[in-house]
């Protein structure tokens, strides 16, 4: 879609006015900023990126999940166009289709100039991307530094190949009254207490439920948390398969006990099933993005459920610290882009404090910042429900931990290697040892 006047009018008036507030994107102003010491919130070294004459840009992004987020992004884009004259066209693809489209664009050297993609996508074609070390270093310095996990999604061999945008936070959503009725006034923070809570919930007839089916987002989040919280890993730092370990066995053992407390049928759950079951009152505890809460909030018939929803982070396992996968999004500039400076100027503009803050706020806690300065965004304190989602970037661990990011880590996740391993074991289709051996064999194929 092109950002035209009509699209803009759909946004809020405040967002539409963004361009006016930000003012001209003049070289003199940019130079002045570059000369000044980098204070938090200041635009970093904008003079580095003067858009090329007559530049136009095309961004391919995932279809937005939150309307406000799209409106804010478009309003910021419009403000950039107003300030620089660089027209930015935004194309949207459903989130699962971004990967093949971007890969083809990278391969054939035409199509969108930039892509907002998921997880390890930039590592599938790093040599087809514009290096953005200058931009990311400047952004990091200006905005309090990058979160470690998100930074890893942008760097290869010390070079920045992509600009981390956000983490889509995942957190436990539960019914407060049901947890209290099960005898827990405080939500347990460790895996043992969590198991005890789920057992008690089942006894009360208000069970928990996590997907063991082929749920791309929720299934992978749950499986990775199970493994990592118990100290397991798919591969070591050298990229050698390391799944066959006592830690993995412990994770499976824990998963089996937890599964026994779930509502029946979680083996078939896809991404939407846990939302559906939770909103219908069938399960009292699951993990999801903040969208679950907003789905209840928007429906007056679900007011009782919405008022009863609480959120918290997934419990800490034997590994001793919170470790989660979360979804991660980055923005890459393709090397076939004719106007790389315009693209960098665009990104720099979008990350400016006022613009990024506006976007994060409009995303209603769905997107968690990649730069530490934005942890102070009021969205995280405006509603206690949002608080756990604020920690997503902090607890985030990269896909394929502890190995390198790349086609192998991407392939292993897309092929549901971990999801299948846990599902095979908890349903009794294979013994835990067999399930691990099968996962090991599949991982060896990807990491050969």
């Amino acid at each position, binding site marked *: 879609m092109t950002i035209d006047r009509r699209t803009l009018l759909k946004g809020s008036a405040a967002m539409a006015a963004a361009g006016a507030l930000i003012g001209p994107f003049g070289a003199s102003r940019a130079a002045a900023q570059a000369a000044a010491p980098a204070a938090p919130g200041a635009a970093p070294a904008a003079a580095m990126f003067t858009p090329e004459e007559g530049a136009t840009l095309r961004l391919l992004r995932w279809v937005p999940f939150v309307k406000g987020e799209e409106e804010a992004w478009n309003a910021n884009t419009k403000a950039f166009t107003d300030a620089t004259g660089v027209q930015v066209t935004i194309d949207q693809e459903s989130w699962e289709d971004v*990967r093949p489209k971007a890969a083809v664009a990278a391969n054939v050297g035409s199509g969108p100039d930039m892509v907002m993609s998921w997880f390890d996508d930039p590592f599938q074609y790093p040599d087809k991307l514009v290096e953005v070390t200058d931009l990311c270093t400047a952004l990091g310095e200006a905005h309090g530094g990058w979160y470690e996990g998100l930074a890893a999604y942008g760097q290869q061999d010390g070079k920045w190949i992509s600009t981390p945008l956000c983490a889509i936070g995942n957190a436990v959503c539960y019914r407060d009254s049901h947890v209290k009725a099960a005898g827990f006034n405080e939500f347990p923070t460790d895996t043992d207490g969590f198991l005890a809570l789920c057992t008690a919930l089942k006894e009360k007839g208000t069970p928990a439920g996590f997907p063991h089916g082929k749920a791309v987002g929720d299934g992978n989040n749950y499986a990775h948390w199970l493994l990592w919280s118990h100290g397991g890993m798919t591969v070591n730092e050298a990229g050698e398969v390391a799944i066959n370990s006592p830690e993995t066995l412990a994770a499976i053992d824990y998963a089996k006990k937890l599964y026994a407390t779930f509502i*029946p049928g979680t083996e078939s759950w*896809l991404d939407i099933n846990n939302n559906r079951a939770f909103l219908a009152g069938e399960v009292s505890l699951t993990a999801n993005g903040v969208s679950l809460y907003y789905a209840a909030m928007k429906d007056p018939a679900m007011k009782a459920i919405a008022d009863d929803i609480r959120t918290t982070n997934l419990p800490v396992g034997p590994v001793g610290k919170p470790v989660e996968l979360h979804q991660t999004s980055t923005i890459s500039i393709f090397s076939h882009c004719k106007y790389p400076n315009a693209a960098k100027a665009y990104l720099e503009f979008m990350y400016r404090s006022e613009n990024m803050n506006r976007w994060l706020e409009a995303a209603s806690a769905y997107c968690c910042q990649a730069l530490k300065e934005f942890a102070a965004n009021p969205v995280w304190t405006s509603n206690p429900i949002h608080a756990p989602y604020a920690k997503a970037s902090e607890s985030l661990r990269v896909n394929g931990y502890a190995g390198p990011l790349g086609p192998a880590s991407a392939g292993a996740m*897309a092929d549901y290697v971990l999801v299948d391993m846990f599902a095979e074991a908890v349903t009794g289709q294979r013994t835990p040892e067999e399930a691990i051996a099968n996962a090991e064999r599949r991982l060896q194929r990807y990491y050969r």
Partner: protein
Amino acid sequence: MSSTSVRTDDAPRRRPGLLTRMIESRNGLGFLFMLPAGIFLLFFLTYPLGLGVWLGFTDTKIGRSGIFVGLENYRWLFDDPVFWLAVFNTLFYTVFASVAKFALGLWLAMLLNRHLPFKNFFRAIILLPWVVPTVLSAMAFWWIFDSQFSIISWVLMRIGLIDQPINFLGDPWNARWSVIAANIWRGIPFVAISLLAGLQTIPQSLNEAAAIDGATPWQRFTKVTLPLLTPIIAVVMTFSVLFTFTDFQLIYVLTRGGPVNATHLMATLSFQRAIPGGQLGEGAAIAVAMIPFLLAAILFSFFGLQRRKWQQGND
């Protein structure tokens, strides 16, 4: 004695152009007429098929061209239990769904071939499952088979036959039968309407003659109707088997191949590994592995079902 004709005009005779000669030639004209179809088939069928076969011999990944690895993809798949599970699932799915679609479709066609009140209305409405986009009907089945909100479970619980919802898509065998049921529902109209068209080409006089000769209804069906219907059955079932074997949408919407790959078909596994997984070479190899099965189905139908002797009722 030979005679030689002498040209009287001075102008040299002009050789006709290539196009003119082609148009005047019977073979040339035929070639010209076939050319558009040939080009179409070459670009949209032969080339993708050839490319797919080639990709199966490489380690191509999305975003980067691969190198020739020979049979490596196939060797890996040979040792991959998930692949063999998908082969088993595909065969199981195809055989049971096709047989059921044939039996129910033929039965329906026979019913619709009778003089029923509102015959045309029923014939039109019977096509609905076929007309509705697969994704939409799959979504409907997704709800029908939901582990918490299934209407079937709800009704059975209401009348007291069960005390908790049936785990339609969570248990491997339940899931297999559930997706087969959805496929049957969707595929029956195609079989029924095609066979109905075939039934209507059978002259009534043959049935009447058989009846006068004292043939029972069953004998008329097995000795007159079925043999005459065989050519249509062969074509319809070939298509039906091909559609079922290569089914994708239904599985993708309902289970994505779960639970634990119990409903993964070769088509869905190929997609999962090739597109989201980025392993184009391996995905292509899985797709190529479908070809022998499809060829076998086609050959069986053409050489097995279209034998003349059987059509004449002597076999």
